[in-house]
């Protein structure tokens, strides 16, 4: 890394030639539109299709009212829980892929990637078909229930009451489940790439020197996989924080997240300035998260 750095300092012209196009691209299609939205957040509606940028801070004042702060906090909680579950589920999966026989590894990775290549909406609808009142999960559970009831009659006991479907869909449980399902690949892939680089002789050494499996895992594997864990957490937490399709389709009456509120400002409420202010508060929150991460990695490098 540092070698490459020296190279571009001594050879500025080729570097400039390479870097101009992406910088131009970024400025034209990212910085400029975002700047316009940022300006909107200091404006107010002057008609059904006109926004007057007056430098007002009213939108931010409104966005920091308890109502919206509480929705921000709720979104953080849901996204945090999603990330934690992804980590708990994803770590063993990444370990399993790392330690699988080499000929199996590409297939296991493909298994992780395949859902990733399918449209999010299709995956969500598929999950909804599975989890509905008359969906396959409830049908399966009903089958088990009836089986158990039949077994009880065999041993002379009263049969169970009739099966009542479980409400899996349209609640916060469904939202978290949907988000975990959608974001799991984001967690598994960085974890896998960190674990794959891990020197396996260190694990052997730890085991040979008398540490148990749990101790080896906690003191050798986890610290060495830390960059992968941090990357996985960031890359899962940030999109989960901005999720709107999953809470919209799978959530119940109290499952709104901040992105749903933002969407409604731009569409139904037709209040772009307020939507812009909410969006930028979300973006600032993400910047702070990323800043924490880079501060942390700088500290690790310095130590």
């Amino acid at each position: 890394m540092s070698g490459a750095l020296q190279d571009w300092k001594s050879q500025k012209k080729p570097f400039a030639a390479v870097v101009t196009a992406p910088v131009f691209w970024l400025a034209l299609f990212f910085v400029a539109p975002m700047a316009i939205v940022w300006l909107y957040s200091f404006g107010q509606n002057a008609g059904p299709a006109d926004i007057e940028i007056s430098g007002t801070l009213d939108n931010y004042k409104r966005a920091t009212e308890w109502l919206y702060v509480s929705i921000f906090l709720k979104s953080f909680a849901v996204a945090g829980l999603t990330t934690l579950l992804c980590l708990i589920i994803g770590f063993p999966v990444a370990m399993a892929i790392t330690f699988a026989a080499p000929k199996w590894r590409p297939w296991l990775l493909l298994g992780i990637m395949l859902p990733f290549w399918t449209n999010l909406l299709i995956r969500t609808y598929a999950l909804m078909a599975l989890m509905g009142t008359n969906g396959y999960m409830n049908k399966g559970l009903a089958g088990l229930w009836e089986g158990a009831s039949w077994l009880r009659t065999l041993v002379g006991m009263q049969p169970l009451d009739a099966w009542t479907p479980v409400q899996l869909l349209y609640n916060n449980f469904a939202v978290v489940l949907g988000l975990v399902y959608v974001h799991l690949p984001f967690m598994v892939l960085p974890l896998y790439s960190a674990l794959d680089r891990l020197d396996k002789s260190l694990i052997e050494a730890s085991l040979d020197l008398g540490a148990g499996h749990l101790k080896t895992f906690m003191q050798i594997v986890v610290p060495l996989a830390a960059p992968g864990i941090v990357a996985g957490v960031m890359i899962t937490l940030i999109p989960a924080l901005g999720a709107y399709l999953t809470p919209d389709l799978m959530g119940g009456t109290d499952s709104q997240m901040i992105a749903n509120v933002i969407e409604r400002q731009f569409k139904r409420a037709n209040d772009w300035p307020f939507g812009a202010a909410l969006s930028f508060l979300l973006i600032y929150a993400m910047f702070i998260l990323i800043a924490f991460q880079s501060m942390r990695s700088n500290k690790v490098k310095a130590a």
Partner: protein
Amino acid sequence: MDFKTFLHAGSNRRAMLKGMGVAAVGFSLTGALAGCGEKEAKKLANGEEAKLNFYNWDTYIGETTLEDYKDSAGVDVNMTLFASNDELFAKLRAGNPGYDVIVPSNDFVERMAAADMLMPLDQAQIPNFKNVAKDYQDVPYDPARKYSMPYTWLALGIGYRKSKVKAVPDSWKVLFDSDEYKGRIAVLSEAGDMFRLYGKYMGKSVNGLTDADLKAIEAMMIKQKPNIKAFHEDNGQDLLLKGEVDLVLEYNGDIAQAMVEDSDIGFVIPKEGSQLNSDNLCIPKGAPHPKNAHAFINYLLDAEAGKKITETILYPTPNDAAKALMPDAYKNNPVIFPPADVLAKCEYAKFNPELQPKYEEAFTRVRAA
């Protein structure tokens, strides 16, 4: 969701595409550009090229209407689709990207007219206006039909599963103010419609709500929230068909489609009255083919063409000449054409730029509560 209901979801103009909004935007943009960008085609007698860009709801036209029009007028109609009025408005907000005819609902006709986004219609070029029912020739949301021609109309009401209710749910009370059907109810996620219908339940006009009313309604909504299973995105008929809920707040046209598939489904407009909507044909400012647009709107209002459209979409038609050609099963269907005494208590919602953000914020509070 089995294959049949999936297909059904796809066959409804408001349900499936809404979720696919992003994809639809991509499609329609390329479609519109392809329509405008092709090399110079032959000119018509009116001096315009033989093209027309039609921006419509999904499954909201007769099966052969566009081909029939090409055969009779020689004009290629390039139809692209939108999924909500918000999408339509957002698309035209920064200038017309090349559409000639659009289909906004009544409150958006008002909103777009107020934003100076619509071209005044030349009624001399639309002689078939005479086919339109008297009630729709002059409407409060577009006095003297300056900007719009009626295409369909709808009424909100309660769709229900007959075998799961004790009595016909003919009052908003069962949805808004009762735990009788706890956990088996889905209502609309559109804040404005919800507040206005609660207003109807309280005996007010949908256009006469005060701040105090909003407060009272918000408290009622929060109290009722535990009894509601979901706020649906206008796909209530699917929830009803799949057995997710037994009562749903929906449009009569959507439930009429569901009743074709499932005879256990019923629909009623509550006795307190309800809210009417109407979709309208308009020409946005900056339309590249305004004369073709007038001619096309005139064709859509033709009796035979209107009949074919109505046969496909099964919505109530404001076109009397087309309705006269329809079979009795449609004309006398009380779901599609509710009795006059019920309709007399229904109102159109006026576009109200001050109240809309208040509805949204109050509804956000209800969801957060």
